[in-house]
Structures are given as C-alpha cells and as structure tokens.
C-alpha cells in the first residue's frame, strides 16, 4: 500500500518536474468523428508525444454534421483549436472567417511544399500563402465486379470510354418486363458521377469545366454538350443502367448487381467487407486519344487563428509531423487513404498494389475543383441530368441552364 503510494508520488513528481523544466505545452487538435481517422490520429499523437515530451496533444472530435458549426462557434467564443482538420473546399470560408492562419514561410517554405507534395496542394493557397497541408488524398477509380466480368466473358476492365460502353452493354441484364436485374454500370450523379462528369468527361471531350481560378463556368460549350450527351446515352441509347437502381450506386455494387461503379478511395473500407465476389480497381477510362483525368480531393490540417507563442510553435511542430512521410504511412495503413507526398505515395510497394496503384496513378493528372458550395454545385449537375432523363429536355438546353445556375452560385460566393 505504502509502496504504491510512494511510487505514485515519485511518478507524479517526475512528471511534474519534467513538464515544468521543459515548459509543457498542451495543444488541441480537432477533427470529425470517423473511427479509423480517430484511431490513426491517436497513434500519431502517441508517436509525436514520444518525440516531443514537452508537448501534449489533446484530440477533440465532433460528428461530421456538426463539425463546421462547432469550429465557427468556438472561433466566436475565442477558444478554437490549435490544429484542425478541414476539407479543402472549406478553405475560403475558414480563411474569410478568420478561423485559420497562414502557415509561416519559415516553418513551411513554399518551395518545400510545392516540391514535396502532389500539385493538388495548391488548392490550399490563397494570396500567396498556404493555409494547410494534407496528410492524405483521395481520388477516383473504376471498381469492377470480377465475377460478373468473367460470366460475361470479358477479360479485364475497360481502358477507354468506348470499351466501357461495349462492356456495359454486355453486362446489363433485364427481366421479361424490361426492368434491370443487373446494371452494366451505376448511373448515380448524387454519388461520384458528378465529379467524373465535371473534371474528367468534360476534359476528355475537349472542354474545361471552369476557367483557371474557378470563377467562371465554361462548360456551356460543344464539348460540354458532347460529354453530357455521352453520359446520358449510357441510359437512353445504350441501356447500360438507370438512375436510382437499388437506390444508390454503391449499394447496387455491393449487392453484386452492378458490374461497374465509379467511386473513391474512401469507399475501399466499405467494399472490403464484400464477401460474395471479388472486385478489382482500374484507372478511369481514357478517351480515344488516350487522355485521362481524375478528381482528387483531401482533408488538410491547418493551424487555428488563435494559436500564438509557444502554442503556435508546438502547433507547427505537430502539423509538420502529421504531414510527414512517416505519418502518411500510418494513415494509409489505418485509414486507407493515399499519402499526399509522392515520395511516400509512389513507393514500389504501393505501386505494385493492385488496389492502390490505379488511385495513385490518377494523382499525377488529377484536378481539384475549387467548390464554393459543393452540395449546391452537385445539385446543379444532378438537376441537369434529371431534366434530360425525366423531362426529356434537349441536352444543349439542359447544359446551358445548368451553366447559368452554377455561374449564379459562383457569383454570389465570390
């Protein structure tokens, strides 16, 4: 009993002494609740604290739906986090609202960031300053059901858009009443298809979605109409699939009733639970000229506007650590998201991995849309496709209407 007490006292004494001598700092790290992300961060914090015994990091998490509101409320109350996670698409709002501060050029020189991270990190740059660094990035790929491909006698995933149409037609099945029992590919604008259409198809048909700084909509063009026509033809002309089949694209794929679906790295965890069939991942198909594109996105870590003095110093150390190649490997292992540094991502091991490789290759040519209101902009695209498929609006008119609606959204935000 006494001995225990003595031990406890000694322990407390040493902890106090060491903390006191090094000037202990506690910093707060905020992110939203997603089990594997929280676990990965716990591990990283443990590693970081071992290296920096004078710094304690406290992880605070909130449900995703509340996250932004909490950050704002904390900012108003003046007790925001020192380091926080944010979606790259929230940067404008967080910068304007004074929630985050620019990274100091001494601790994070521009040349270092630009040479060591994938180019999509530029989405964190405002007026010459970087406001955050990603640990992991996400991109899109084509998931395909190997069992259904085999049954249909198709060797491998489609490499071009043309092959995708041909394969899709072979893979779709209907019952006597003309209803799909299996789709060649999921048609789900509410899922990732809107990103595919925006950053991939539009470019593959010779267009661009926006101007360089994403302030002007530029898809009201021949290319925009052609890309949209091609997409809706999957339903109307080729009978490859239908909207709302089994409610959601990913649900249809999981159920083994969709041969192909386009989805992101973040779906890997969920699809790994599939036991009824084997699935594979392929790069998004190229156009006839071999042009490929992709949409990449990420959550970045940034430093809260309130951090100053030794807390700022500790926050910088922590941010540098969570964006280090070492942290990225932990993140890849625990969360399954791809490292944001080519050095950590494009390793021989990762490139030989049949699941990671297609996603990784995509990072070299991916684009990152600078959304002002992702849900709103997605809605515009969904409505465009619905007007064509449900109301038989001519494609050119639908595209023009969508472009005008999205431009209005951009204008209001800028």
């Amino acid at each position, binding site marked *: 009993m006494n001995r225990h007490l003595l031990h406890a006292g000694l322990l407390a004494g040493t902890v106090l002494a060491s903390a006191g001598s090094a000037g202990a700092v506690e910093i707060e790290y905020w992110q939203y609740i997603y089990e594997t992300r929280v676990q990965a961060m716990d591990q990283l914090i443990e590693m970081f604290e071992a290296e920096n015994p004078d710094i304690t990091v406290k992880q605070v998490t909130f449900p995703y739906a509340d996250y*932004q*509101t909490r950050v*704002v409320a904390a*900012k108003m109350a003046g007790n925001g986090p020192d380091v926080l996670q944010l979606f790259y698409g929230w940067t404008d*709002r*967080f910068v*304007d*609202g*004074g*929630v985050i501060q620019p990274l100091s050029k001494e601790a994070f020189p521009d040349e270092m960031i630009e040479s060591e991270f994938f180019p999509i990190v530029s989405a964190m740059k405002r007026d010459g300053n970087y406001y955050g660094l990603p640990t992991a990035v996400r991109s899109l790929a084509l998931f395909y059901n190997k069992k259904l491909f085999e049954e249909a006698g198709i060797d491998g995933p489609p490499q071009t858009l043309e092959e995708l149409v041909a394969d899709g037609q072979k893979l779709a099945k209907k*019952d006597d*009443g003309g*209803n*799909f*029992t299996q789709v060649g590919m999921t048609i*789900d604008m*509410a*899922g990732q298809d809107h990103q595919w259409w925006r950053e991939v198809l539009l470019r593959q048909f010779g267009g661009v979605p926006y101007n360089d700084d994403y302030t002007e909509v530029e898809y009201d063009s021949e290319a925009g109409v052609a890309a949209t026509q091609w997409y809706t033809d999957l339903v109307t002309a080729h009978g490859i699939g*239908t*909207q*709302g*089949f*089994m*409610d*959601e694209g990913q649900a249809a794929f999981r159920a083994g*009733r969709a041969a192909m679906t386009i989805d992101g790295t973040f779906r890997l965890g969920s699809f790994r639970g599939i036991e009824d069939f084997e699935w594979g991942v392929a790069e998004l198909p190229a156009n006839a000229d071999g042009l490929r594109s992709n949409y990449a996105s990420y959550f970045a870590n940034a430093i809260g506007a309130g951090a100053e003095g030794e807390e700022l110093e500790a926050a910088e150390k922590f941010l540098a650590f969570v964006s280090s190649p070492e942290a990225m490997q932990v993140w890849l292992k625990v969360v399954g998201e791809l490292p944001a540094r080519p050095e950590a991502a494009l390793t021989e091991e990762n490139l030989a991995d049949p699941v990671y490789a297609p996603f990784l290759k995509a990072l070299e040519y991916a684009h990152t849309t600078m959304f002002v*209101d992702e*849900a*709103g902009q997605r*809605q515009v695209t*969904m*409505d465009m496709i*619905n*007007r064509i498929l*449900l*109301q038989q609006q001519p494609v050119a008119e639908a595209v023009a209407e969508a472009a005008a609606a999205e431009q209005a959204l951009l204008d209001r935000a800028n």
Partner: protein
Amino acid sequence: MSRDATPPPAAPRLSMRMRRALWVWGFLALPVLFYGVIRFYPTLDAFRLSFTDWNLMSAPKYIGLENYRRMLAEPEFWQVFRNTFAYLVLGTPISLLLSFTVAYFLDRIRFGHTLMRALYFLPYITTASAMAWVWRWFYQPAPTGVINAVLGDLGLAQMDFLRSTTWALPSIMVTAIWAGLGFQVIIFMAGLRSIPTTYYEAARIDGVGEWAILRRITLPLLKPTTVFLVVFSSIGFLRIFDQVYNMTTNDPGGPLGSTKPLVLKIYQTAFSSYEMGYAAAQTVVLFTILLLVSLGQLWALRKR
C-alpha cells in the same frame, strides 16, 4: 414578519387566491423563462437576421430587404412554396377524412378493438426517419422495391414513385398521412366517446336515420375536436421535413425539387450553403404562413 404575512380577516378569499396565483407563477416562471430564452428570443432574432447577409463566420451585414427581394425573384422559392401548400391542401383533408372514417367504425366494433387501435397508433410512435427509410425501400424499382415487385408479378408496368417529378410528392405524402393517422384516430375516438349517448338514443327513438344522426349530431358535436385536428395537422404538413429528407437524401427534395418543402429549403440554405440571413428570411415567411393559417382556421371553424 409573520404577522404581516397573515391575511387580514376582511378579505381572506382574495388573498388565498393571490397566494395561489403566486405559487402558480412561481412554478411557471421557470418554463416561461426557459421558453423566453430558448424559443422567443431566437424567433425574434430571426426577424433581425432576415435583413442581414451572414455566413456564420463574419459579422452579419445589414442589407435591408435584399433577402426578401431575392426570395420573390427565385423560381425555386415559388416551387417550394407550391410544394408546401400541396402537402397542406391535399394532406390535411385526406388524413382527416381517413382518420374520421377509421375512428367512426372502430368506435363501433368491440372484437379486436384494442388491437386495431394499437395497430393504427403504432406508426405514430415509430421514429419518422426509420419509417421513411422503410417506405423508401418499398418504393424502389424492382428487384428491390416490394410494391414494384408485386406490380411486376401481376404483369403491370412499374411505377417510378420517388423518381418521378409527378408522383414523388404524393408518394411521400402518403407516408406522412399514414404516420399521423393513429394520433388523429385516437383524438377522434375520444371526441366521439365524449358525445352523450342520450342524444343518439333520443334520435333513434324519433326514428332518425344513421346518416342524419351523423350529420346533425355527431359532426356538429365533434367540432372542437375537428378544429384542433385541422390546426394540428395543417401545422404538421406545413412543417413537413423528416419524411422528405429521409426519402430523398441522395437528392434532397428532388427529383428537380418536386418534393422540397419550405423547411427543407430553409435547412439547406442555412446548413449547407451557410446563408443564415437568407434562411432567416425564409423562416420569417414560414412563420407568417403558419400564423395566418392557424388564425384563419380558428376563425373559420369558430364562426359557423
């Protein structure tokens, strides 16, 4: 001290009443205070916010009537407005008619009465979102959806319930009516039970037919119940959200906004676009509609 507090013998009754009033207000003060801070203050504040441009981050900027001007000029707002009234105008009479019919006949049966009543009431106590998801799956195209699978087996064409701009709103309304039915049935039955049986006996002795009894005795005497239910159900339909949101999460209020009610639009404006001022302006409009509809109904049904 204690002498002062003892009531003067001249008016013991008044003082007794006063003391009781004090007690009552003492107990009521807490909820009143709570309501004042949690409900009335934010409600009033919404009026102020509706004249501002506020994205939560920066300070609200006063912009006068700009939000209201934008609302009136926006076609989507009018569509949402029409949808909201479609829920109200179709939903309230249909649900009242149904619930009255059920209550009227349920009141007459003895065998299985309790079981039937429980079955009707069950949806009301089920979580709205859980129920919405069940119905969402019912409405799916074959092979997932039960309704379409049955239609298919009967050799009938598939219905595009939630994927059709015409049928999505009625499809969602059906689930909302079903969900509220049990409550209305119970209230109607309580109303029916409270009508003295002597009236019916007298009428039957005089040889009055069932139809006349219903029209001349039951319905007029049920008026207080009906007024309550009309107001209650109207407010419910004007504020419909759960069913719509959960049955259309992929394309909230879709397809093409054909099922979007005002509350969902307010929610999206506030918590997905972060345009708090604009959302507040829409809230003010909803508040005004709710107030007018409630007052109008009370007035119309009282007068007759």
